[in-house]
């Protein structure tokens, strides 16, 4: 199976790898997946409390090239968005952008789950209800 150019680009030049202070009040952290399933994503967002805009996003991923690319792309898309806009990111957008084959769709689902988990972590910190699917 050949990888698309965009997957290769994100794999070779991943955007926004790193770690934000998960203890910080305006950082939301989402950790999804499981090592025994072969992929784990940790996605973090830093939200400006005044504007409600995601100022920074970082990720680290254990997984295949498509999983790394999906999370890298997610961080790219998250930056500059409001929480509400971020919630609109659909896994199929990721599939389309990266031209993921059917067997790799679960990577995009995981990235969407990671976004939601990070947002919910942030909301919980702010005393808000987590958003249900």
């Amino acid at each position, binding site marked *: 199976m050949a990888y698309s150019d965009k997957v290769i680009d994100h794999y070779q030049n991943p955007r926004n790898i790193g770690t934000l202070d998960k203890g910080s009040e305006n950082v939301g952290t989402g950790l*999804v997946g499981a*090592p025994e399933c072969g992929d784990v994503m940790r996605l973090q967002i830093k939200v400006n409390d005044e504007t409600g805009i995601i100022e920074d996003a970082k990720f680290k991923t*254990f997984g295949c090239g498509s999983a790394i690319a999906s999370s890298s792309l997610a961080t790219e898309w998250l930056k500059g968005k409001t929480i509400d806009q971020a919630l609109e990111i659909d896994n199929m957008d990721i599939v389309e952008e990266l031209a993921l084959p059917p067997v790799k769709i679960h990577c995009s689902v995981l990235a969407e789950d990671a976004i939601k988990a990070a947002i919910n972590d942030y909301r919980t910190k702010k005393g808000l209800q987590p958003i249900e699917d």
Partner: protein
Amino acid sequence: MLKLPIYLDNNATTKPDPRVVEAMLPYFTEYYGNAASRSHPFGWKAEEAVDYAREQIASLINANSKEIIFTSGATESNNLAIKGVFEMYREKGNHIITVNIEHKAVLDTCRKLEKMGATVTYITPGIDGIVNIEQIKNAITPQTILISVMYANNEIGCINPIKEIGELAHKNNILFHTDATQAIGKIPVNVINDNIDLASFSAHKLYGPKGVGALYVRRKNPRVKVTAQMDGGGHERGMRSGTLNVPGIVGFGKACEIAKTEMLDETKRLSKLRDKLENELIKLEETYINGSVKSRLPHVSNISFKFIEGEGLMMGVKDIAVSSGSACTSASLEPSYVLKNIGLDDELAHSSLRFGLGRFTNEEEIDYAIEHVKTAVNKLREMSPLWEMHKEGIDLKTVEWTEH
């Protein structure tokens, strides 16, 4: 001069030796007769070539040339051996003993026979991948007609105590089949000394062409018969009908002849290169060799790089052709059943790479592989949340993961 990409997947298939290709060519262009045509020189020439190849092949494993049955490859040989024995000896019993890390050609054949009335015991080997002779002894019943244990495993390269298993089988009047696909041509296999009754193997794993294999079927002490699974003209002493693949068989014969003369030196050379690769790579933290290191093929190394995923790693070393036990490389999304069944955690199975060296592997390539695998592992660990957690002293087993 280093030529990229580098081929380190010699357990999947091998490059045909140029001497093999050269031997085959005239049988495509000039000597195209059917080996079963008895009435003209075209047929005689083909038959002569097949007879010669049969000798070359038999000689490699200390068999008689009459004991070599040509097939399309090891998958067919395994099918013919196991189904053929079950059908032929069914009156004697219906029990088969095998191991749960055998190749799918053995396991799926056994599963099918279970639907047809066979009882199969699947033994779980130790963490080294090697079968304990006591486990087989304990599994034998008065109904046991066949023991099928692979000579060497295709994923981790561990070598089973074949001679002892064969001895046990013969003592109990049970036939012994071995899938010797990964072993023949790589390490000495002697069907007499090893007490083997049936052995499957294939040309393309020993620098021969694809599409041709053989089943060794013992003719004396005991005389073994298998029921044909392919009906037709009654070729191959009635055990496998079908016009013989003459060029393929000629290549197979030549490949066996070369293997016989060069095996000893080649084994030494390859184990030296393999050890170099392995010793360098396990200098990386949290890196583990899978399967036995004591009883193992000289050219195989299966290594898990903890906290990174195998397919991701392969993408990072795209100029090196290897394979992984990671789920992502298969359609099933399940990691390697071989690694799981020897008791490896799923996580480590996902993190594994198999390096298979071969006749055309040189030291420059191994040096390149060492350097590039190390770089990729370090890069991916910097990207891995698991590595970060490990470095922070978090025990990953205590984390509540969201399975999906």
